[in-house]
């Protein structure tokens, strides 16, 4: 690894801890980020000459703190606000705090706070994600814009607005209590899941561009689990992301069309990621404190454990979806359950399960896709065609539409009476 690549990796891995500590210290996101930026520039020079420090994060916090203090003093002089003594006395207290942090005590809450401010309820999900990728992960605006398929200027504006909103928000800086901490953890976990889905729901032609979102979500999720090593839901979240992402290489064909789970080339699945995911779900289960991430990870695990599609334990998946429905009642979960039911108990039972959902899912592409497929299995081809037509009208991506068209083509072929059953 050349010097620059080495320093880059060190800065990336130290960033959440360093920015988190600087934020606690300066209590202002912009100042904290600038201080970190400043420290990073000095690191480039100093680390190249003197080699790596033993603890890069501590080095960056120390240097960033000094840079930030200089900046705050400089600004105070320029603004010349005579009665604003608050900042200086705050700095005095914080100096001791940083010394304490260098003993490695509070960094868990620092990182959690940094992630938590990105989850501000007034921010749109896409704003939350963009902000987290910028300030926690340290991706450039250009990189984030690319992953979101928008212009750099638009992304810059989105992030600036999100920051402004966060700056006005009241973020408590004292160490959170146990209840508060677990609430923060839940919000942060949900945001990490959003980041992942943003990358995972990409269509075939954009999957590669958006893949970094999945990888970053996994990195953040692993960071979170390291901070909270005994939280089964955090194990579940990381397991879920790893098991889903393990299939990335098999999810689209060369033309960028979706390849269904049962048609995927399982030799393309990433075995290391699957091993890690399965190990985590095993660990989580021992806690006997189930939760939505663990259940979803358990479902993904059953798919990954099946060497061939026909080995899939659909009965167990049906049961797990049943458990998930109880935890998070949602028509979308019932719809997913219906797919498992069709395999375990037949299309008739599955269709009966989804019929009541139509009112709530009348604009949902997948509902009509699943319904069409079930009707097709039952030989009710005219109704199937109607459902598929509706699905195409609701498709979000060209890959989704193309996938449904494939079903329709099959129906057309069958309708011509040329069903080559013996082939």
């Amino acid at each position, binding site marked *: *690894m050349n010097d620059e690549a*080495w320093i880059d990796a060190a800065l990336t891995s130290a960033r959440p801890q360093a920015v988190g500590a600087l934020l606690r210290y300066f209590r202002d996101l912009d100042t904290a980020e600038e201080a970190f930026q400043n420290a990073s520039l000095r690191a480039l020079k100093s680390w190249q000459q003197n080699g790596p420090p033993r603890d890069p994060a501590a080095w960056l916090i120390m240097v960033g703190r000094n840079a930030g203090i200089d900046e705050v003093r400089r600004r105070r002089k320029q603004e010349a606000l005579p009665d604003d003594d608050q900042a200086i006395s705050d700095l005095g207290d914080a100096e001791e705090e940083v010394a304490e942090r260098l003993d490695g005590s509070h960094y868990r809450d620092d990182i959690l706070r940094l992630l938590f401010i990105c989850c501000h309820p007034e921010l749109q999900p896409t704003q939350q994600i963009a902000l987290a990728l910028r300030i926690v992960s340290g991706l450039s605006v250009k990189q984030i814009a690319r992953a979101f398929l928008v212009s750099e200027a638009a992304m810059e504006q989105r992030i600036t607005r999100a920051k402004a909103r966060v700056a006005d928000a009241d973020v408590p800086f004292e160490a959170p209590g146990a209840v508060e901490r677990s609430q923060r953890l839940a919000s942060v976990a949900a945001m990490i899941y959003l980041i992942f889905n943003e990358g995972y729901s990409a269509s075939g032609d954009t999957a590669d561009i958006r893949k970094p979102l999945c990888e970053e979500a996994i990195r953040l999720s692993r960071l979170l689990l390291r901070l909270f090593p005994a939280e089964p839901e955090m*194990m579940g979240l990381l397991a879920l992301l790893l098991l889903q992402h393990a299939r990335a290489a098999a999810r689209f064909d060369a033309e960028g069309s979706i390849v269904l789970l049962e048609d995927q080339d399982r030799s393309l699945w990433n075995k290391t990621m699957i091993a890690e995911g399965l190990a985590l779900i095993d660990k989580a289960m021992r806690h006997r404190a189930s939760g939505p991430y663990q259940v979803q990870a358990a479902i993904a695990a059953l798919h990954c454990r099946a060497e061939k599609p026909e080995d899939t334990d659909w009965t167990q998946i049906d049961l797990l979806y049943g458990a998930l429905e109880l935890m998070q009642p949602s028509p979308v979960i019932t719809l997913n359950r219906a797919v498992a039911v069709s395999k375990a108990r037949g299309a008739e039972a599955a269709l009966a399960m989804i019929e009541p959902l139509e009112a709530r899912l009348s604009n949902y592409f997948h509902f009509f896709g699943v319904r069409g497929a079930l009707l097709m299995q039952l030989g009710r081809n005219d109704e199937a065609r109607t459902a598929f037509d509706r699905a195409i009208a609701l498709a979000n991506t060209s890959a989704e539409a193309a996938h449904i068209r494939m079903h329709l083509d099959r129906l057309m072929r069958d309708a011509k009476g040329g069903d080559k059953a013996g082939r």
Partner: protein
Amino acid sequence: MLYAILCYHDEDFVGSWSKEHDADVMAKLAVVQEKLTKQGRLGPVARLLPTTAATTLRKENPPLVLDGPYAETKEQLLGFYIVDCKNLDEAVEVARDLGAANPGGAYEIRPVGLFAPGGAVK
């Protein structure tokens, strides 16, 4: 004499490597391993998954199962090699070669007392 070469590094840092860099390091290490294999000196090699996947059993009475690695350290045990070497100098030489292929972190060179290669696990 068999030596274990235990690989320690900051796993956050290693986790920040790009996929290309990771593959590059593994390819360079493979060259060193290949050389040792040809000399008939290389035993089992393992790369461990992150410590977040680790579980620790404390052998108290009754035994206590804990999440996470045994020791919370700045650098984590990430893998190991078993290598046959005439003496410590030779083992240090092997570690140097591995280190040149994969700089950063540290190798602990530890003589092996008992070695049961097993053989059932592929």
